[in-house]
């Protein structure tokens, strides 16, 4: 079964064809990696999935429902969540609050509950705090719960973004370069973290430059270049694809 499908998805920025006629399908509970050189259109693809930019043409279907016209928060509520290439934490908030706010749409109560601290409020707020701690434990930041988010080291900030995304209880989680700026040990940790997320029953779509990580972890790889899908397949298929090698190494070196 496929959870996410795009059909001839296109997004132009003026004259720039950021993505052009991209079609692909992501299988339920799989890890799909999107790779490609800088400016290939990977982040733009994520922005289309999450409603941050509207596609110029084409369709995006999530669990057989068309989502390409929806608002970002509507898409998040349906069950697609993401992290950002340039970290976007709520820096003034503490680490735990960043995760708590992630449960905004999952644990609800209204203004009057908040004012009167009624039962519903107490139960929900208790759950929010408890879940937030569990997510922090999951990514290994439980000892930093009280710290201001922007005081965390860079690598931890990236993991905190993952925890915040998980807190929305998504079916699909989109990770935009989750290991950017990390050392090999941290990268290794994130790799096993991604495996663990898959085991929770979630589908992961990953943008990643680290080929070692991509080849080791992905069930399916999609290669973009200049906005166009130039190859897709299992890691071993993609690895040996001449078009991919050309895109990555450039024409000169091939000849």
């Amino acid at each position, binding site marked *: 079964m496929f959870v996410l499908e795009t059909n001839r998805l296109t997004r132009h920025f003026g004259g720039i064809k950021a993505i052009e006629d991209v079609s692909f399908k992501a299988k339920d509970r799989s890890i799909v990696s999107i790779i490609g050189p800088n400016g290939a259109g990977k982040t733009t693809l994520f922005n289309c999935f999450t409603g941050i930019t509207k596609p110029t043409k084409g369709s995006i279907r999530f669990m057989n429902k068309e989502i390409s016209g929806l608002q970002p928060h509507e898409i*998040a509520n349906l069950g697609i*969540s993401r992290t950002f290439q340039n970290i976007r934490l709520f820096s003034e908030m503490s680490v735990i609050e960043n995760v708590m706010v992630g449960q*905004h749409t999952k644990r609800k*109560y209204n203004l009057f509950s908040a*004012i009167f601290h009624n039962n519903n*409020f107490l139960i929900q707020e208790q759950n929010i*705090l408890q879940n937030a701690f569990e997510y922090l434990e999951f990514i290994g930041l439980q000892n930093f719960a009280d710290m201001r988010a922007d005081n965390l080291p860079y690598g931890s900030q990236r993991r905190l973004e993952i925890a915040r995304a998980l807190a929305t209880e998504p079916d699909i989680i989109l990770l935009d370069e989750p290991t950017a700026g990390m050392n090999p040990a941290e990268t290794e940790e994130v790799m096993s973290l991604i495996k663990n997320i898959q085991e929770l029953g979630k589908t992961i779509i990953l943008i990643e430059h680290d080929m070692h990580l991509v080849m080791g972890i992905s069930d399916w790889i999609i290669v973009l270049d200049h906005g166009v899908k130039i190859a897709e397949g299992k890691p071993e298929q993609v690895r040996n694809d001449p078009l991919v090698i050309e895109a990555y190494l450039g024409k000169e070196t091939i000849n």
Partner: protein
Amino acid sequence: MIKDIIEKIRALTKKSIIFRSSLIAAWAAILFLPFKDIKTAVMMFLSVLIGLSAIFFVRKSNFYQTFLEEFHPDFPHRFRKPALIALLIAFFVSPFILADYYLDVLIISGIYIILALGLNVIVGFAGLLNLGFAAFYAIGAYTYALLNTKLGLGFWACLPLSALSASFAGLLLAIPALRLRGDYLAIVTLGFGEIVRLTLNNWDSLTNGPNGITGIASPSLMNLSLGRLEYFYYIVFAFVLLTLAIIRRVESSRIGRAWIAIKENEIAASSIGINITKYKLYAFTFGTFWAGIAGTLFASKMQFVSPESFTFIESVFILSMVILGGLGNTYGTVLGAFILALLPEVLRGVQLYRMLILGLGLVLLMIFRPQGLLGGGKSVRIRN
């Protein structure tokens, strides 16, 4: 040559607190010269000198840090509870001790605290600059004034109605205005403030124009008039506590967290499912609600309203309270409102120049503590 002299002065300012203070004090005094006589300028010089030296010494001695840690929600606080209880008791017994004049000043500060707390929801939590907050204050005040004088409705019946009409006006303004960002939103709210004031000023048949509305009733409870200063003081005191309690609770709920998230990063907030537009509207309607409450209190205190009380300067004054206390910090806002509301009374002799002093104070604040008196820590939006 000149460079050397400037360098020397620089070095001296760094080294000597007194020298640094006297430079600033001299500057402030010179500012005053065109407006007043030399005596005022000297007074100004001396008071600024003493004030600033005190501030600088306190900063150096870390007293301020200790004070901050005690009252800032981030830190474990040993003295906070006893201090707050002492404060509460002090405010509670004030009417028995203080002369009417001081009670009057405290009542006005209380009204400003409610206003500033409301504005802090919009500007400090949700990050939406509002330069026309006095308009909602005016709507609250006039709603009570009109309902009372034209229809004879009492204070308690009007209070929710005025609060809701201010709130509704907030919603009506926010629906179109929230399409705009930053500076544009500020300009639209400023424009709205002026429109409301000009309407009140010119709609003679309803509002009696610049002459205002007189004969507004004080609150009463079962035929007992609560217009006496001491009673009114307790009413305002109770409303300040109520406002503070409610806003603290909302702040540390999912609603408050959503506001902060929007202020910090709209894209990230929407990506976790927060409906940005809805929560901005929420902030506007919730914040302006308190302006309506404050307006009603103001009208029943003065028993008179006129457009003059709701100028652009008034909006700026309320915003200054929020900024002084620390944007987004509830206790800071209370402190900022209290200080700025007392300021004109403290500076009675130079009342005409309160805006000048306010400006000077804000400039100094921006230089030495841009995050406001109590701002700049991490937020605490967990129920505690």
